[in-house]
């Protein structure tokens, strides 16, 4: 089985769950023996790291991973496309930069991108065109596109190759922007889902959105839960002494993740318990507003902002945390709570998330219910018995979420799709 996979981001250069999911799924599919050609957008200043061999070819850079991925070949398209950046940010950049001539994409490997226009629409279609180009020289049975930026590319590749298209919905515009959706992005999402033979959703929560807000037939949409990476040998870091409990928020600091609800609950918790600190680990468009909000509420001295954490810092912060809170307004799945549980941290998640429909040994709350959120946070901090039971049972529960299972299900869908084609 050979698949042409269109992705967005890939570790170590990730800014959110999409990269983590892509990595986990690709690795597991690789182990199953599925041959994958993975196409990613990349800005010119990033390199992959020492175990990746870079081979240049016309107009795009092809790499071969030597160690971890046996059956995966990476193709990188130089592009400004960055996930999670809102359309307005792109437009703002466009106003600033003066765009000069557009260089032909048939030039050599070191493309200068600074001179490109920042129009997102243009970027997506350029990516699509390049992907289609790559597709003409690659051999594959099926196309697998992750999230909206890759859908036009998926459609283009499907046209060129006449192979079936699968789209994998990790998030929808409704998750990211609430009710103020960007009509263009919505259009692209819908177009992608319509053009695909099958749509894979990361949860029933997302599946319902796809069916009801995008008008896709229910038979076309399958649910495959994400997995979580097993870190069997996470070193126990020597941690600084701490006298105060730590409640952790780890994720992009953006509207979708509910940072203001976290802070509102923090304020109420501090009225009941004094020796607790709140840590917000992440970056995002609401970062500065959150810092201001914490100060305004008078809890600035109790809320710490670490910015984006990578690698062993992530393990360290989980090991220091007494509790992990995910007050997402709308979360398609939510891998971070699983990571927290793996690190033996009890978890409180919003009921408006995909993972809430399947996790049992976690505390759940409606994201807007600040009082109940406070009630539950205080209980975990106050009662060691609760902390312990949630940790033990929650940790055990993460063993259910294996990328191997997700990969098996993806493979089965591939086979079913090809059989009926």
């Amino acid at each position, binding site marked *: 089985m050979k698949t042409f996979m269109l992705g967005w981001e890939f570790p170590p250069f990730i800014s959110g769950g999409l990269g983590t999911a892509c990595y986990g799924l690709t690795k597991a599919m690789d182990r199953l023996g599925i041959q994958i050609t993975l196409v990613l957008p990349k800005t010119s200043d990033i390199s992959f790291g020492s175990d990746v061999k870079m081979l240049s070819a016309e107009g795009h850079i092809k790499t071969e991973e030597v160690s971890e991925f046996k059956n995966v070949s990476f193709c990188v398209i130089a592009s400004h496309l960055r996930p999670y950046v809102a359309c307005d940010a792109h437009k703002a950049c466009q106003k600033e930069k003066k765009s000069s001539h557009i260089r032909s994409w048939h030039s050599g490997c070191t493309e200068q991108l600074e001179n490109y226009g920042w129009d997102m629409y243009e970027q997506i279609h350029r990516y699509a065109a390049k992907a289609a180009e790559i597709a003409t020289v690659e051999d594959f049975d099926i196309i697998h596109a992750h999230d909206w930026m890759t859908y036009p590319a998926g459609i283009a590749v499907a046209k060129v190759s006449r192979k079936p298209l699968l789209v994998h919905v990790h998030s929808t515009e409704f998750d990211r922007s609430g009710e103020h959706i960007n009509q263009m992005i919505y259009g692209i999402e819908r177009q992608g889902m319509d053009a695909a033979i099958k749509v894979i959703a990361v949860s029933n929560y997302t599946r319902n959105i796809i069916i009801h807000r995008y008008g896709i037939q229910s038979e076309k949409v399958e649910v495959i839960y994400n997995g979580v990476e097993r870190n069997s040998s996470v070193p126990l870091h020597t941690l600084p002494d701490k006298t105060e409990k730590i409640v952790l928020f780890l994720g992009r600091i953006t509207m979708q993740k509910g940072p203001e609800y976290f802070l509102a609950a923090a304020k109420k918790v501090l009225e009941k318990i004094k020796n607790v600190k709140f840590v917000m680990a992440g970056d995002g468009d609401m970062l500065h507003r959150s810092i201001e909000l914490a100060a305004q509420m008078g809890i600035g001295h109790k809320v710490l902002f670490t910015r984006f954490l990578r690698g062993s810092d992530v393990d360290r912060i989980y090991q220091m945390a007494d509790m992990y809170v995910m007050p997402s307004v709308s979360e398609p799945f939510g891998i971070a709570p699983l990571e927290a549980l793996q690190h033996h941290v009890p978890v409180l998640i919003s009921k408006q998330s995909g993972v809430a429909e399947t996790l049992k040994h976690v505390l759940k709350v409606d994201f807007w219910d600040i009082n109940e959120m406070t009630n539950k946070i205080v209980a975990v901090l106050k009662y060691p*018995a609760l902390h312990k039971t949630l940790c033990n049972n929650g940790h055990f529960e993460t063993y259910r979420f294996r990328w191997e299972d997700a990969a098996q299900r993806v493979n089965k869908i591939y086979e079913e799709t090809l059989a009926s084609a």
Partner: protein
Amino acid sequence: MASVCFYFQVHQPPRLRHYTIFDTDDNYFDDFKNAQICRKVASKCYMPSNLLLLDLIKKYKGRFKISYSVTGILLEQLELYAPEVLTLFQELASTGCVEFLAETYYHSLSFLYSQEEFIEQIETHKQTIQRLFGQTPRVFRNTELIYNNALAALIDQIGGFDVIITEGADHILGYKSPNFVYRPPNSKLKLILKNYRLSDDIAFRFSERNWSEWPLKAGKFASWVNAVNGCGFVVNLFMDYETFGEHQWEDTGIFNFLQHLPEEILKYPDNDFKTPSEVAAAFDAVDVIDVPYTVSWADIERDISAWLGNPMQENALTELYRLEANVKNTNNKNIIADWRKLQASDHFYYMCTKYFADGDVHRYFNPYDSPYDSYVNFMNVLDNLNSRCCRALLQKEQQPPGIPARQCLSS
């Protein structure tokens, strides 16, 4: 000679309302929900079952006998929300064919934590049964049939009882059969053990379509009871009263089954019905049953892991009983009553994480979405009770000593 001994457990807990750390009042219990559930169970189970059994008792003119254990906290709820059910129980009592057992008034696990409280609750329950039904119970059953050797010793010490009933768990019986009367080590008490196979056939498997014996007709069941003849004296059928109408809905045919059962059983001349006291009087203990580790009738394990299986449950129970001295010292009957209602074993049953993945009997009438929610709720309430206690004790200390009656102004 196979005597069928029916025992029905009748109980509803006082459920807590949603109580957060922001709540400061002392209304812990969800009166609305409790009333609603009580009335619902009364109409689906208690009323039709009581009427049916009353009918059957009258029809068979003293040959059909049953026994009940009704908890004190349910009796309180019936008085408030469904007094007609109480009246029927009284009618049943007056037939002379119905025996009422004693248990802890509050359906509590006090046996495991406080001997003093345990004894007090049994005494209160006995008095209530005497007052309402004109019977003084001589048969004891502990909450959820929890039992071990120490319980037998304690009951011996308290005195006034002849029989204890408990679960006929495999791990205490070994090769022995529950169809005989036994006794605890070094005791003259008699032990009557539940025949869980036959009891659960009615209580659990009755409506399971993929059970090999479905549908269970009264005639078939009576033949199984009859098969005990020659290798047993009693068939102890112990179950929740709610089997009839709630756990097994009316449309499963459960009432029909019950209606025909006495007739089918009595078709065999060797069979009859006996109350637990009659069983103890009729049959000698054939052997000692040694129960060093606690058993119960709950779940497959038939031990106490349903209430004490995880740190949350242990912690909640320990903290609850830690308050005993303070609570009783306040002499405040509201505080004491609330503390006792918090002892209902159901509160801890809801915190069980054992089978959380599957919906099962634990989830029936469980007001919580998750065991963690129930723990958080319970501990918030307990915290408030503790504060109330401390305040009450402080007030008591600060009050000036009362003026003795002789020194009043009037004379």
